[in-house]
């Protein structure tokens, strides 16, 4: 066997022999309903927090840009890949954040990998929250920096680790997330800012799941916690609240545009297609003009979280648009996921390998676009799962 044959033979996928990884999702004319493997379902596992994928302004802007500028840029931002909508979105995001500069990336994953590997090098120190997203860990690896993890959401542990660094603490970059993607919990950002500030370190906050969701204007956890001026860099994505695809890094303090060549994910990747940039611009406008979407989302999150909690499910520690239902056995989790689909609800099935603890997750993500009837349908499917399905307590 050669290298590739050995590698392919050795690799084992989660739920290898099931249909999970071949799941075919079809969205039917709206952000929260569709079919999964042919079964009509409420979509409750799409991170489509504000439901903007079908907003008429976004769809129109996207179609017009495709008609006018074509389907792709076929070039990097440093070459031929800057079209009017790229420049426009950068301006508008900078204005939204009151930022000095914005860097756009083709995906959210690339945003973290690109900016972290551009900010840190072999002489740097990175301190990551233990439950950081894979893109943060991968950015750290690519940077070559000495990397430590601190206990999840534990500012005291972060303090201890910065102290152990001695003089090097002021050269460290601390990385946390706004809302953690698996259990939906938020970082204790004010406490973290206090610790980071005391040591003169720098702070990057990944607001992928909190952008458009938290804060009076939707700028994320840093806005909600009143610490925006203490955060050095915010990273975010367009693939959740903005309903398309892409990522960004933004800073109020620093001119990140100086890092465009150093961030290889920026320099050596084709830029987003004009239609994606145009829909992101339209979606950002919707976020700015419609704060009631955030209220609707948080109301749906509150109702669902409380109902599932009352049914006896083990959840994350706080109400959030991400509701992670913990299941301590992978076969049971798979059976439960099928049961929910058969009962008209699609959620994400998260394997042990990707979950933050010794459990799999049935991850529910709520949307402002979920109707009260759809929320009832989600709760009802989970009630049946607990009463007569694979997760009944006797099972």
């Amino acid at each position, binding site marked *: 066997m050669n290298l590739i044959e050995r590698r392919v033979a050795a690799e084992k996928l989660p739920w290898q022999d099931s249909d999970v990884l071949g799941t075919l999702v079809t969205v039917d004319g709206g952000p929260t309903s569709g079919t999964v493997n042919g079964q009509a379902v409420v979509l409750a596992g799409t991170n489509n927090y504000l439901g903007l994928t079908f907003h008429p302004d976004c769809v129109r802007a996207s179609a017009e840009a495709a008609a006018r500028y074509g389907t792709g840029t076929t070039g990097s931002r440093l070459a031929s890949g800057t079209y009017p909508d790229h420049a426009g979105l950068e301006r508008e995001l900078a204005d939204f954040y009151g930022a000095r500069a914005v860097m756009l990336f083709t995906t959210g994953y690339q945003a973290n990998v690109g900016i972290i590997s551009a900010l840190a090098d072999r002489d740097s120190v990175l301190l990551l929250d233990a439950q950081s997203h894979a893109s943060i860990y991968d950015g750290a690896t690519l940077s070559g920096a000495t990397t*430590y993890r601190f*206990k999840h959401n534990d500012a005291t542990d972060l303090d*201890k*680790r910065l102290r152990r*660094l001695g003089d090097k603490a002021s050269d460290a970059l601390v990385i946390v997330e706004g809302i953690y993607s698996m259990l939906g919990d938020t970082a204790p950002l004010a406490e973290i800012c206090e610790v980071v500030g005391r040591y003169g370190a720098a702070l990057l906050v990944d607001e992928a799941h909190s952008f458009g969701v938290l804060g009076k204007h939707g700028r994320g956890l840093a806005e909600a916690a009143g610490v925006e001026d203490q955060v050095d860099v915010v990273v975010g994505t367009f693939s959740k609240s903005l309903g398309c695809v892409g990522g960004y890094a933004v800073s109020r303090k620093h001119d990140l545009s100086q890092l465009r060549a150093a961030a290889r994910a920026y320099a050596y990747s084709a830029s987003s297609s004009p239609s994606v940039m145009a829909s992101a611009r339209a979606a950002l406008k919707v976020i700015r003009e419609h704060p009631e979407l955030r209220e609707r989302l948080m109301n749906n999150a509150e109702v669902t979280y409380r109902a599932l909690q009352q049914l006896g499910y083990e959840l994350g520690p706080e109400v959030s648009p991400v509701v992670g239902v913990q299941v301590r056995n992978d076969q049971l989790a798979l059976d439960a996921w099928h049961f929910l689909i058969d009962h008209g609800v699609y959620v994400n099935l998260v394997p042990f390998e990707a979950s933050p603890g*010794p459990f799999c997750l049935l991850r529910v993500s709520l949307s402002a676009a979920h109707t009260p009837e759809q929320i009832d349908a989600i709760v009802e499917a989970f009630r049946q799962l607990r009463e007569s399905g694979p997760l009944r307590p006797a099972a």
Partner: protein
Amino acid sequence: MTKREDYAARLKELVNQLAEEGTHVDVDSDLVDDVGLSSIEIMELVEQLEDAYDISFPLNDLAEIRTINDMVNELERLVGKQ
């Protein structure tokens, strides 16, 4: 008891607490393949050592640590740097 022996004894004790009952653990046992620890359990072990010795393990080095002996080497290096 030398420092190295002290580290090894402490580590064996911690690994035994995490391993399934009856698992044979010695200083050259592979923590994953022989002892059966999961990545979460290995991180738990690392956190206990970090608190006990007031050190931080760089993630960069963790991939190279397969056995208790490897971990003892890393402990010696990190504690020695203090």
